[in-house]
C-alpha cells in the first residue's frame, strides 16, 4: 500500500521536500513508516525517532495502523500563538 508523508517547517527544510509517497506493507503502523524513512539514511536520519504524527489531520499514536491513501503528517514541535 501507499501513504503520503507530509513534512512541515523545520522537517521540510531538513529533508528538502514537503511531500513523499511511501510504499509500505499492508498492516504497517506509524512506527513502521518512521523506521522505513529513517532507514533511508541522510537526511532522513535527522528526523526524530518518535516525531509527533497526524494521520488524516488528527494526532495519532505510533502504534496506529495505517491504511492505503492515508495522509501522514510529520509535525515538528508547534509554535503558534
Amino acid at each position, binding site marked *: 500500500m501507499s501513504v503520503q508523508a507530509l513534512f512541515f517547517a523545520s522537517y521540510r527544510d531538513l529533508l528538502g521536500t514537503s511531500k513523499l509517497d511511501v510504499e509500505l506493507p499492508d498492516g504497517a503502523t506509524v512506527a513502521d513508516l518512521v523506521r522505513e524513512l529513517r532507514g533511508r539514511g541522510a537526511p532522513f536520519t535527522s528526523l526524530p525517532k518518535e516525531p509527533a504524527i497526524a494521520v488524516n489531520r488528527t494526532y495519532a499514536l505510533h502504534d496506529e495502523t495505517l491504511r492505503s491513501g492515508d495522509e501522514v503528517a510529520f509535525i515538528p514541535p508547534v509554535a*503558534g*500563538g
Partner: protein
Amino acid sequence: MIHAELVHETIDPADVLARVGAAEDGAVLLFLGTVRNHADGESVDGITYEAYERMASPVLAEIANEAAVRLGTDRVAVVHRVGELAIGDVSVAIAVSSPHRGQAYDASRYVIEEIKKRLPVWKREHYGDGRSEWVEGVSPGREGAASTAGEGAR
C-alpha cells in the same frame, strides 16, 4: 456563535471582539498575541507563520469548542494569522464573553495555552542580523493524540 478561523490577512481586533458579547454577559475578554521585536535577547524584525492549514483549521475549531464548554456560552471567537508578519502585527486574537468574569479569564487562557500546545503552526523568526530560525516549539505528542482521539480533552 463559536467562530474559529485561520487567515492570511491582517486581523482587526474590533472585528473579533464584535463576534462576542450578549445582553446576558457581564464580562468580555479580548486577548491579542502580537509580534514582538525581541526573543531570547535577540532583536527580531518579523516572523513567518506557517501552518498545516487543512489540519489547523479543525484543531482551532476544536479548541474553541472546548473553551465554550468551560465558558458556559457559545461566545468564543478565535482567529489565527499565517504568513509574513511585522513587529506589532496581531498573530492571534481570542475573544470570549460570559455572564461572569471567572469563566471568561479561564476560557481565554485555555484557548491560547491549547493553541501553543497543539495547533499545527510554526514560526520562523527573522533576526536583526539577517539570520532566521524556526522557533523551538512544544511537541504536541501524546497529549495531542489523546485529546483528538477523544480520550479526554480535559
